[in-house]
Structures are given as structure tokens and as C-alpha cells.
């Protein structure tokens, strides 16, 4: 056997024997493809397929249990003339814009506070996360009680403090209802900002701050010229995620008001649900959901470009 092997020894002695697969994988392009394949399959399965399916639904007249036929952009044309849809668009924009500003301001403030050294730091940080940890449906039910027209603890407290004489109709008044859902969203969202920004703050070397202090920079100047620019990339990513989540928010409004009164708190997602599930018009529901896409796409592109610019500076 050994003799045979010796006699059969090929001419190119140095190289070991390779199978066709191994040879293929030696090529970096193929190797990259193989390594990326699992991710691509996952993305295709869980992101691309539902998205394509959504697009497909939105250009048909599909209903629950009926595949439907191609109707082009009819669903979108109908939406453009739908007064409830216009209200939902406006509400969603206001809801997202207002909550994002407040969540960023409060979140940043909280992160800066938590970044200091004090007793019970770990415990406080854990507590701050609570609104984010509790399932939204549960916490929203608690808020629903707090805003209840008859039993509102907020009204009770304000009344006892002598600040109001009548009761405030939190969820019954159209403007107050939108403000109420905004308040709950801010309450729920601030911990996400705070913890993410805190993580960002901790990557900034304290020496930079110290150096600025030695040079005579005041606290505000140190924040504005040292901390903020370094925190900006993290902030942009956090804001990006938050906008996407808030824009597509559903549970909070569904539990708190069901989109009422008279559609005053109707958002894209709640309206899509109402049409798609409540009425069984899957195609129109999909069209409403998909109408969010261009807006979110622009947000993502703008922010990603901004992050790239910051990174290359």
C-alpha cells in the first residue's frame, strides 16, 4: 500500500489534494457568498418575503379568503380620497414628531444624570428601564385607568391640590386624547433613549472632558463642544430606530382609545388593522401600511447619510 502510494505520488508534491468544493471556496468571492448565505436566507424569509407579499396584496383587491386580482394603484388612489386616512397621516406625523423630540430631550437628560457616580447607581439604572420592560399592553391598561373619565387618579390628584374644579376629559376630548397617547408614548420611550445614550456616553473617554475643563470650558460648553459631537452617531441611530417604531406604533393607541374619539387618535397602523382585519379588506389594509414605507425610507436614507458624514469627518 505504502509502495503504491509512493509510486503514484504526483508531480506537484507540495500541495495537498483538494476537492472541487474546497477549490471553489478558495476563491474569496465564492467564500463570501457562502458565508453570507445564512444571513441572506434569513433576511429573504423574514424581511423580503413579507414585504413583497405586502406590496403584492396592496395592488390587488384581495379580501380575507379571496386571493383577488390585480387592480394597479386603485387602493392607493382610494386612500388619497379617504378623509380618515388623511387624519391618520396627520396624527401619525404629529405623534412621531412630538414624541421623538421629548423622548430625546428627556432621554439625554436622564442619561447624563445616570452617567454620574452616585450611591445606588445600578439600582436606579435598572428602575429607569421599567417602563420599557413591562409589556406595553399591560402598562397601557394601567394608563387607561389613570385617564379614565370617571376614576382618573390624575384628575383626583389635581382636584385635591385645588388645581382644577371640573374633571379633565383625557381620552374623550379629541386634542387631549392625542396628547394623552403622546404622554404614554414618551413615558414608555424615554428609557430606551436613556439607556442607549448612556451606553454611548460611557464610550466617551472622561479624559476629553477633563482636558476641556482644565482649559476652562464651562459645563455647558463641555457638553456642547465635547460630549454632544461624540455622542451624535449613537443619537442618530437611536432616533432612527425610535422614529421607525413610533411611526408604526399600534398597541398603545389600540388599547387606549381604539383610534377614537372620532378618529382623533387614529394612526397608520390602527387604521390599517381596522380596515384589514375589522373589515377583511386585506388589500386596502396592506396599502395603508405600505403608505408608511416611502416616509420611513426617506427618514432612513437621510439619517444613514448623516451618520456616514459624521463618521468620515
Amino acid at each position, binding site marked *: 500500500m505504502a509502495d503504491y502510494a509512493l509510486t503514484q505520488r504526483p508531480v506537484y508534491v507540495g500541495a495537498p489534494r483538494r476537492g472541487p468544493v474546497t477549490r471553489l471556496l478558495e476563491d474569496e468571492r465564492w467564500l463570501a457568498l457562502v458565508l453570507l448565505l445564512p444571513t441572506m436566507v434569513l433576511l429573504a424569509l423574514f424581511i423580503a418575503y413579507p414585504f413583497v407579499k405586502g406590496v403584492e396584496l396592496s395592488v390587488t383587491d384581495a379580501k380575507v*379568503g*379571496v386571493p383577488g386580482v390585480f387592480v394597479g394603484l386603485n387602493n392607493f388612489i382610494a386612500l388619497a380620497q379617504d378623509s380618515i386616512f388623511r387624519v391618520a397621516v396627520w396624527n401619525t406625523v404629529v405623534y412621531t414628531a412630538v414624541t421623538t423630540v421629548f423622548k430625546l430631550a428627556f432621554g439625554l437628560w436622564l442619561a447624563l444624570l445616570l452617567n454620574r457616580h452616585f450611591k445606588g447607581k445600578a439600582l436606579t439604572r435598572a428602575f429607569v428601564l421599567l417602563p420599557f420592560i413591562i409589556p406595553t399592553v399591560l402598562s397601557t391598561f394601567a394608563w387607561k385607568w389613570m385617564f*379614565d*373619565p370617571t376614576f382618573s387618579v390624575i384628575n383626583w390628584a389635581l382636584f385635591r391640590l385645588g388645581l382644577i374644579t371640573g374633571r379633565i376629559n383625557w*381620552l374623550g376630548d379629541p386634542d387631549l386624547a392625542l396628547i394623552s397617547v403622546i404622554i404614554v408614548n414618551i413615558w414608555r420611550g424615554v428609557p430606551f433613549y436613556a439607556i442607549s445614550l448612556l451606553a454611548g456616553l460611557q464610550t466617551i473617554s472622561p479624559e476629553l472632558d477633563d482636558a476641556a475643563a482644565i482649559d476652562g470650558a464651562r459645563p455647558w460648553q463641555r457638553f456642547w463642544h465635547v460630549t454632544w459631537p461624540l455622542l451624535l452617531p449613537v443619537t442618530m441611530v437611536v432616533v432612527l430606530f425610535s422614529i421607525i417604531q413610533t411611526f408604526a406604533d399600534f398597541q398603545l393607541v389600540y388599547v387606549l*382609545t*381604539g383610534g377614537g*374619539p372620532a378618529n382623533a387618535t387614529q394612526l397608520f397602523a390602527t387604521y390599517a388593522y381596522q*380596515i384589514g382585519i375589522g373589515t377583511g379588506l*386585506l388589500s386596502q389594509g396592506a396599502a395603508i401600511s405600505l403608505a408608511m414605507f416611502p416616509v420611513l425610507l426617506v427618514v432612513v436614507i437621510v439619517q444613514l447619510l448623516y451618520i456616514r458624514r459624521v463618521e468620515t469627518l
Partner: protein
Amino acid sequence: MARIGRRKLLKLTGVGALAASSGGIAAILAAGRAPAYAQGASVHWLRWNDFIPASDELLKKEIAPAAEKALGFKLNIETINGNDLQARTTAAIQSGSGPDVICGLNNWPQLYPESVVDVSDLAEEIGKAQGGFYEESKVVANDGRKWIAVPWCVLGAMIVYRKSWFAEAGFDKFPETWEQYRDAGKKLKAKGRPIGQTLGHTFGDAPTFTYPYLWSWGGKEVEADSKTVVLDSKAAVDSVKFMTAFWKEGHDEGGLAWDDTGNNRAFLSGTICATLNGASIYLLAKGKPDTYQDEKGKPIFEDLAHAPLPKGPAGQFGYHLPMSNMLMGYSKNQKAAKEFIRWITSKEVYQRWFDSQKGYSVGATTVWEKDKLWDADPVMLPFRAAARAGRFPGYAGTADRKAAEGLSKYLITDMYAKAVQGMPAEDAVKWAHEEFVKIHA
């Protein structure tokens, strides 16, 4: 401390044992079929969580074993939140698997006509044996040619009110017309005891008030052809104008935010004098006399009575929530499932469930009006024949998908909600009219 290795951990946590014994996913894939527990003759019935919990208990603890004995297959009863039923139904139809029988609310069978089995023979058989179905039960479960579901029950909606408070305001009898009711509301609100009515986005108490209210003024969505939208009428505008004033004078303004439980809480805590509801407020108060008491410390239920919605210029109407059992087209046990519907809707078996409801829901057939249950409690009597005055959204047309679209968009409810929030009556009606025109386009 003893070290626990990976293998030991697997052994300790039974996950390893389970994976080892079943051969895991690989074994299932290799066998090419679903694991055994998904097979075998059994019928899966999906319902809402009943507002009368004793009924759910009866179904699960007594009816299910009885079904197994009588029919020879297992009956799985699943109950979920009423608000989630539709999402579950949609998912089941789209994925082609799920409960064999779904007990749907409202006119849901009309939303899924392509996905349910024709049950005409069964429905006709039950209707004939039990004195015929109510019109409202029929319009939601029959598409004009065939039965697409078997009517199950009707949930009566009546005004529950405080007798003593109305008497104090000079109304020994409950107001019979909207004018009288408004007058009562004005007097009672002045005493801090307003009428409570939701105009929020909630599937039960909001539309069951706003639709019959509109009909009683002579307003309607469409003509009998189900196409011509005729909402923008003098009758509708008058009804909105009246409602706006009635709301300010006699109603609790928190009602704009209530869901189906908001008025129950407000009523039981003594903040409102009357509200349109199922019998749940009364039945709950009666069941817990020590918990629910009036301002004098007496059980509140003794002061309660029920009355239908008052009369308007065009008559007196009601909209009571019908429920019907859909036999799902994707079901692999259609024969067994149909047998099950026949069995559970039969007089003997249904009687047990009907008794447990104590009048909260009435039968879908007229025979149940004669039941001895109605002798037990005179306060429940107004529910007995309530379903006779019932109409369904979509009137004067059919209770089709377009009617459901208007209903699930809360167009009629929002027409009134917008007006009480300050929109001129003409504009509110016009807005709702145009929305209906788009639906029927």
C-alpha cells in the same frame, strides 16, 4: 460547587430527554407528517370569553365531556378576548388551518362567505324545529341564497337605569320618547346624575346605540338596493342636532372615551343614572349584592330596571349583537364539526347553556321566548322578545361586507361624536354620507 457540564445540563432539564426521545425536529421531518397530537377526531370550537363566566365554565367542564360521550370525538373549546376573535379568524383563513368552528359576532359570516361551508340544511332544520330564526339572526348568517353560518344567540341591548333616581326626577315610568328621555336627562344631570353613553370606538355599546337611534329618526345608510347612499337626509340631520343638545344637557361627557366596560364601571359606581348595555350590569350587581350597593347601603340591583331605547319620529328600534357558528372551509373534520353544531344547537343541549346565561343572551330562534327562565326574574323580562325589534347595520340594504366596513370604521358613531364635539350637524352628516358613498362606489 459542583460543575454542571453541557451534557449533564441536557439530562437535567428534560429538554434533552424530550429531544432525545422524540428524535427532535429531524424525526418529525423524516416522518413527513405532523406529530400525532394534531391528528385524531376532534373538533376545535373558538368562542369569545363570555361576559357571563359561568357559561364558559359550563361549556368546558360539562358540555365538552358530554359531547365526547354523545358524539364520540373530543371537543376542544377555546375562549379568547372578543376583540381578538377577528384577528384570529383572519389568520386561520389565510393560513388554512385553525379552529373547525368559530362562533363569530355581528355579520362576520358575511365577511368570509368564501371561506365557510354551506350549512343550509342544518340551519333550516334547526330553524324549523325551534320556531324560526329572528330576522336579525338571519340577515347576518344567510347571504340571500344559502346559510353561511348557524345562528347561535342574540345579545340583547337595553337601557339599564336607576328606578329611584328617575322617580325622584318625576319619571315613575321610563321615558318612552327621545323628547321625554332628554327631559329626564336634563333634570338628572342637574343633580349630578347624568345619562352615560359611549360614543367612542368600541364594538358593542357604541353602534348598538347610534344605529337604532338613527333609524328611530327615519335615517338610514342605504336604500334597499344596498347601493344608493341616502344618509344625508333631513331625518339624519335632525337626529344629529337633537343628539348634540341632548349630549350637552343630559349626558356624562366622559362617554366619548368609554369602551364597552367604561359605562359598566361608571354605572356601578353610581355616577350615571342610565346606560345602554347588555344585561351584564344587572347580573353582576345581583350576583354580588354586598359589593355593589347604592348611596344608602342597599344592594344596587334592587333599584335597577331595563327598558328599550325610546321611540323616535319613525319608530322604535334596537340593534342586538347576533352570534353565529361558522363551519370553516379549511377544516379537515367538517363532518364531525357539523355533527357537533347540530348537537350543541339542539334544544336539550342548548337549554343548559341558555339557562347559564340567565337572559344575558337570548336564543337565535323564537322558541326561547317561551322558556321558563323568563318567569324567574321580572327585571330580565324586557330582554325576552328584544330581538324582534332588531335591525342590523346596512339597513335598508343587506348586512353585507360594505355594511361591515361602515360599522368597523365607526362612521355612524363618529358622525354623532363629531357633532357633539362641535362640528355643525349638516357637516357631520355630509362627512359620513361621503364616506359611505366611497364604500359603495
